[in-house]
């Protein structure tokens, strides 16, 4: 059985916000990546991945962020990540230097504003 993850996408002006709920691990990482990629049309300015409700993200999930950032950069679109203060995910994102590929914000609003 795969890990349960749910993605809800909404539009804030030219930016798309994807709320990732649940857990991301090696059983569903590629599926999560495909869904996120499919949700970004070519004319969008960028994608914000909101990890507020993400309970688990392992190295396969982090790989998804790097991969997305690369692909979006080619399309001249920017990827930003939202992790609330005090989230258990924070230290892992720091360790793996996710910030070098996608800026990390504390709120969705600040991420959308860029």
């Amino acid at each position, binding site marked *: *059985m*795969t*890990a*349960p*993850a*749910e*993605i809800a996408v909404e539009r804030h002006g030219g930016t798309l916000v994807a709320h990732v*709920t*649940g*857990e991301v*691990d*090696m*059983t*569903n990482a590629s*599926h999560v990546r495909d*869904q996120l990629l499919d949700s970004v049309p070519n004319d969008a300015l960028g994608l914000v991945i909101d990890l507020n409700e993400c309970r*688990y993200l*392992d*190295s*396969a999930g*982090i*790989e998804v962020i*790097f991969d997305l950032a690369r692909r979006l950069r080619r399309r001249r679109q920017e990827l930003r990540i939202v992790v609330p203060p005090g989230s*258990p995910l924070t*230290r*892992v994102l720091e*360790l*793996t230097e996710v910030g070098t590929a996608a800026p990390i914000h504390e709120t969705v609003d600040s991420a959308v504003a860029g």
Partner: protein
Amino acid sequence: MLRRPSHRQRDELRALASRQAAMADIGRRALASDDLDAILRDAVDAARAELRTDYASVLELTSDGRSLHVRATAGFPDDMLGGVLRADAEELSRIALDRDEPLAIGDFSSEPDFEPSAVQRELGVTSALVAPIGVPGRHYGVLGAYAREPRVYDTEDVNFIRALASTIGLAAERSRHKSRVRDSEARFRELADTTPALMWMTDLDAHVTFVNEGWLRFTGRRLDEELGDTFGLSAHPDDRAELLTRWRHAFRRREELRFEYRLMHAPTGTYRWVLEVGMPRFAEGEFAGYVGTTTDIHERRSMEEALRESEAGFRDLADSAPVMIWTTDTRGLVTFVNEGWMRFTGTTLAEELGSSWALGVHPEDVEKMLDSWHTSLEAREVWEYEYRLMSHTGEYRWIVDRGVPRYEGGSFVGYVGAAVDIHERMLMQQQLREVYEIEHTIAETLQRSLLPERLPQIEGLQLVPRYLPAGHGAAIGGDWYDALERMDGRVALIVGDVVGHGLRAAATMGQLRNAFRAYGMIESSPAEVMARVNRLVTSGEDAMATVLYLVLDRETGEVTFSAAGHPPPLLLASDGARFLDGGRSMPIGAADPAVFREASGVVPPGSTLLLYTDGLVERRGVPLEDSLEGLAEAAGEADDDLDKLCDRVLGAVLRQREPSDDVALLAVRPSSVSAEALRLSLPAEPESLALLRRRLERFLHAAGADELESYEIMLTVCEAAGNAIEHAYGPGDASFDVEAALVAGELVASVRDSGHWRDRRGEHRGRGIKIIMGLMDDVNIESQNGGTLVTMRRRLAHARAA
């Protein structure tokens, strides 16, 4: 949290539902049809379609076990069907049979230990999934699915082929059995038509459905006059009441009926003494009525009566009687046998006198017969024994011999006895016994294959199941219990009872159990699980079941449950016993659509839940409320030992009686989580990770880790586990071990696998290692015994004292 399933999950659900439907379909056909070949064809088609392979086949093991007969194929060239393969050339099939386990080969080219057979190689087979059919010692053969592409067969695939093989096993067993019963019934009819004995049969309402020619000649009545509710009609008015009382008593208890009474003999217009012997008969494991013989014992009875009156009367009778009569002296030596005896044995008087008469007794019977004779003789008691005696044709025939002590002027002078030929009756009994034994074997096979032999070990939960089969007859019930660990960490507990008995009920039980396992994994709401299973059941054949389905959160003790026509679970807490009410719904299969309700409650720490089927509480003439109250009283406070609790409850409620219906009982107690150590062995597949996370969370929480520590340690261990899984040797076979312990405030975790960590190819793996190194105080990776052991340490801020 309510989530819509993702696309991939929806696909998985769709695949599962499709397999479930295919299984139900084949199960139904296996029950409805006698055409084994058609069932096998359906099964291989389903295997190929559901497992998405190129080929599938059923190979039947020949009786010498050396060859495999190709019974059904899908995708294979037509000329393979009907062929015979050498068992030792079909390596996979042989190993699956030896291990009695399904065997998966994802890619033959990377499995040095296994090779495809010549036929498979010719067809380009690269991967295979095979499962044995039937139970060890009675294996029917092998079901196999083969693909040209390398494949990963997951747990669901293995479960599917296992379930399919078990259904085929059932159909094969049933077909074997049917032909044997048919033979034996044909033999019975033939015997009934040619024998001079009187024979009869009833249905399960005790109505007469068959009497033979002999019976009609004796009673002088027509067949249509004898059929129906006619039992005892031709008995002597003085004997009839007692005959009927004994008959009803035996019938209710499914016991043998044995009674001597007077029956109207039409040719002479008088009543003659007969011995009635009736035995219960079974069809497909269900009680079907009685079958019996009636033996004329008039001469023997008359002789005994005559003897009581006068010696002279006895001599007259003995000379003219068509039965076999004998007398002995005080030492038991034969002093006289009548004409009838000599006509039977073809011997002379001189040959029979003394102790030489025993020479004609069948060698297998003689020793026990003489024992019994000498015991009776010493005690001067009435002696009766059934044995085989050689007749004048050289054939051994069964007789019943009965001797009574004789006294003259108050002193013992010896025995007088009479023997009656009961050969036909004994033959019939033997055949019935044979049929009964086949029924019994099938019932056992079924129960072995359908009931969980033991429940899965679920961490943090003590589970003790009990199953008591009903007291009388071969009828097996459709009760079951089950437990499964869901991916969200909650545990589903199921107790159910299929309405009806026999092979059909047991097979339905097997299907329901599978359906609950499948939907129990997918659906989190008990009411939704019930609705799903209900839809499956109502779309198929007529079947109904009462079920209690309960989901327990081991952390919080919260339970959510639905009771479909089923009595409520009993909670034994420190403040007494009470039933968890609510969630009452219609039985499964009663209506569609149906609304299923669910209710919730809490199991406080240290308390116990009792789940049971209504065989435990149902008593004829006792209102259910009273029975439930009796159960609550009997359970009282929970013992420390769940085994003792189960024994005590069963003992008190059933009071040494055999239950009149099957009883399933499941005692459940959440145990406190060990804060000292966690030890796990999991299959090396990505699907294991979610379960590992739940276990680690529970353990770390108990060990006193705070939320952040808990998350980071869990993540680290799972990263190490992810490495073990990626480097696993092959599908299905490999596993990895995880240990975690709290040692002096320090958390020590280790992950051990049997593969080698490859070079850090790609950034992704490099990040995994970065996480492991960064989040732990100390990490050690070493190769040992052809595997890799990662040991990780981290000091906890507020470790609980171990």
